């Protein structure tokens, strides 16, 4: 909680899109954040190289999603399908962005999806993703791309689920660490002065809890931030997190710590929380 800790600085936002509803919920959130940070948005569509490879397999067949008909896959057919998808995504992106005055760009790249996004994301300050992609297994599960991004993102990552919008309450899972403090400052930066920041604080160690709480209050007073501190214990965290599952708008800020104890909690949060989640990792680049 040193004074030198700064919130994340967002000048360029990357928003990888596919034609899932989640990804358009993510775009909506990206627009709002871009307005806050006065940032530039870049849309990205990755033409999946793995898909194109499918047609080269000896057993290149697919089952129609609605017709349930088995048909041959061809490279041409797949390419065309992907192009159609990408065109639709670009159009939708333009339509939404054109209603704003934000600076924007859109790129279409070909490659392995996660890897392409990861590489591309190096040029950006924030990446916003739909929580799951177009997988047929549907809902609430983290998509494979998302999972990979969580595993290796270097820059702040926001995950957005369909039907859940960015807004209030703003909830921060605080830990007294550099990344925790960056998260705290980021929350302050994003918070409207009239709103209250809800800080979730671990009470496994009561003394540490009291101390941290004291520091947080001091910090809040110094920065004139309304805060409300809620305590939790690691073994009851699941029950605790269920309480916020019903919220449809809000923002959950999650410091992404490599610490194994935190990993479980992070995973729980990612699995259970429907609100947009902002994952902040300590970036020492």
């Amino acid at each position, binding site marked *: 909680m040193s004074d030198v800790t700064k919130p994340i600085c967002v000048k360029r936002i990357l928003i990888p899109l596919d034609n899932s509803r989640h990804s358009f919920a993510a775009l909506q959130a990206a627009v709002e954040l871009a307005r806050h940070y006065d940032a530039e948005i870049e849309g990205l569509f990755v033409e999946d190289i*793995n898909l194109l490879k*499918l047609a080269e*397999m*000896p*057993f290149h*067949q697919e*089952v129609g999603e609605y017709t349930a008909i088995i048909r041959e*896959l061809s490279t041409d057919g*797949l390419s065309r*399908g992907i192009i159609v998808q990408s065109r639709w995504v670009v159009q939708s992106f333009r339509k939404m962005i054109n209603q704003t005055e934000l600076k924007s760009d859109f790129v279409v790249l070909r490659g392995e999806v996660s890897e392409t996004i990861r590489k591309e994301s190096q040029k950006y300050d924030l990446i916003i993703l739909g929580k799951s992609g177009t997988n047929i297994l549907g809902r609430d599960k983290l998509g494979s791309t998302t999972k990979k991004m969580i595993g290796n993102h270097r820059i702040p990552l926001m995950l957005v689920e369909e039907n859940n919008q960015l807004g209030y309450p703003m909830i921060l899972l605080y830990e007294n660490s550099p990344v925790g403090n960056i998260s705290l400052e980021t929350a302050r930066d994003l918070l409207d002065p009239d709103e209250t920041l809800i800080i979730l604080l671990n009470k496994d160690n009561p003394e540490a809890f009291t101390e941290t709480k004291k520091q947080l209050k001091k910090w809040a007073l110094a920065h004139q931030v309304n805060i409300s501190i809620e305590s939790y214990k690691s073994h009851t965290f699941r029950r605790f997190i269920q309480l916020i599952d019903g919220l449809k708008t809000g923002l959950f800020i999650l410091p992404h710590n490599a610490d194994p104890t935190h990993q479980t909690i992070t995973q729980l949060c990612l699995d259970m929380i429907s609100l947009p989640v902002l994952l902040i990792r300590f970036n020492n680049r």
Partner: protein
Amino acid sequence: MPKIRELKPDQLYRNCDHDTLGFDTTVDINQEVNTVGQERVSDAIEFGMQISHPGYNIFVLGPSGMGKRKIVRDFFEDKAKSDPTPTDWIYVHNFDHPDQPHAIELPPGMGTQYQQDIENLIGEMQTALSAAFESEEYQNRRQAIFETFKDKQAELFNELQDKANQEGLTMIKTPSGIAFAPRDEDGVLSPEEVNNLSKEERDKIKNTIEGLQENLQKILQQVPLWQREAKQQIKDLNKEIANFAIGGLINELIEKYQEYDKVTEHIRQIQEQIVENADDFLPNDSQEAANFLEALSQQRDRGSTRMDRFKVNVVIDNSDCEGAPVIFENNPTYGNLIGRFDHYAHMGTLMTDFRMIKPGALHRANGGYLIIDAIKILRQPYAWEGLKRALQSNEVEIESIGQALSLISTVSLKPEPIPLSLKIALVGDRLLYYLLVQYDPEFSELFKVEADFETEIEWNEAHQDLYAKLIATIIRREEAKPFNRAAVARLIEEGARQASDSERLNTRLQDLNELIIEADYWAAQHKRKIVTDEDVQRAIDEKIRRADRLRDKVQDSILRDINVISTEGEKIGQINGLSVFSLGSFMFGKPTRITAQISLGKGQVIDIEREVDMGGPIHSKGVLILAGFLRGRYAQNIPLSLSASLVFEQSYGGVDGDSASSTELYALLSAIAEVPVKQNLAVTGAINQHGDVQAIGGVNQKIEGFFEICNKRGLTGDQGVLIPQSNVKHLMLRRDVIDAVMAGEFHIYPVEHIDQGIEILTGIKAGEKQDDGTYPEETINRMVKDRLEVMAKRLAQFAKDEDDKK
């Protein structure tokens, strides 16, 4: 033969005796009289109104300006006051057949009430439905149904995924389907890696994939069924919620209108529609329209627009009506009479629905009375047929003409017909009535009551009294100043003049109305508070002055001797006849020179007018009659051996009527007898074959026409006019003519027989036939007969000489 006595001034005009009018000014007359002498019409209309059998509609006939419409309207309005107020009619949507809207009958005033109730219901339903469908209960239950569906789907996919994983395969979503591919820890194998596998391994993978694909197919085939199931569940839920939301409102309304089965049925149908299609009525957060057409389309599909179907179209609202309605349809087009349905443009198409139904005069007058001008309805295409159809079927059915004739091709309606019960009065002139009777067989079945207006009534004391009251009523209605007794008397006298009969009064109310308004105007010009006879006279004079341009021209041409008329001296075979010109409502008389020439011949009288097709049949008839007279009187023992020709000099238009037949005979007698005729006299009168002089029309105008010429040339004291004795009772002459007669400067001779006339015209006795069949010496008849005998002998001698030559 009785000696002719010229008419005295008191025979030339009938004065209205002021003493018989029992008032000073019309203010003293309180009684309201709207008609005079129309008892036949009153009885007919009364009969037509009272009789309830179909087809007893009324045709009110008479010349224009009689006040027919007003009179029939007064009758109807009087009767309508005591009649029951008819019911309201509404049109509502027919949910089974939208093109055939239902008609519902409701007690007076209830139509608009029901309309308002439905408007309120729609508003309340929208609120209630919004609240119900936004409620947490609904949202959660709806979400639960979706979740169940998704879970079911996900469960099977997960199983398949797990199965695939166990076999070293993974499911991959392609742009249009799902594929399986072999994988290892690092992900999907590349095509090269697969190709490097042994054939057995590849076959195994292939078989496994085929098995999985089959499983996947089965799962995917299930999905639509589950979707349908989920949709049905959502629909059931919507129904349940909608029913709950609007049930109370609906029941309240049903209870209010429980006596009216059709209304409760309509309310129930609304409920059914909303419950069945609840989601159509939900507030729609539709996506932004991509273009104009889409926006229009969305506009139409919105819940509020759908609710429009439930609205009520009140076509007949009798809430403010006391008694039965009396409607006068001034523009009886088909649509205005039968009703119509308008169209509205929607996305380039013309649309219509029950809300666009507009009532016609038949709807508005249903249960009451309808007045239509016959000529107007006959002029409107299809209106007459439409009216007859409605009266024959006793119901009014709105049909578009355009549709019936396939003129337009667009959405159309066939609204349920409304039972018709009303009394119709057609107002028109007599000719129209007789033509309809003659040429339209259905007319007599539908208009059985004939109300025929009298155009004149007898001028007796009782009628005079009524006439004065009628004048007073018109004065009040027109808000004119009061008329004094002399002014009313002058109006009554003018009534007789208009009837061209000193024993009759004109009942054409329009003439009286105009005269009253104009006299009132002239009184105002003279700043008089009471209208006097001077004002009435001024009004009469001014009215004539406005119309007499042509009369002035004609007289001017006579006075300048362009049109030659002698008013002095004597001449053989030449006489002044009198004709009448009728220009609109203005008539004037004009003297015309008639001449006759004779020669030897075979007894023919040639009517030159007829020879050149300028004489009408009645005129020709008159000429043939006079030839008959000649033969009858003078050619009993000898052949009529002359050929005579008769002509209206300087006549460039047609001539018709037999009023000049006596005049022509006088000219002919003068020519035959070679006796000159006095040119200071003019003659009018028809004759029969016995020489009796018979009545003619326009006697007043004819006398005045000759008088004006003489007067302008300067009266000589011996000028005058011969008229038929039977026309004396028609005399209502102008004051200046009467004054001249009074001063002995002008003379009017009533003639009964041709012999009387010829004596006056020639100053020679006509001569009565003696027992030996001859006429006395020095008489006209003797001269004529002698001349005819001479001519017969000459002709016989001529014929003999000719035969001898041969």
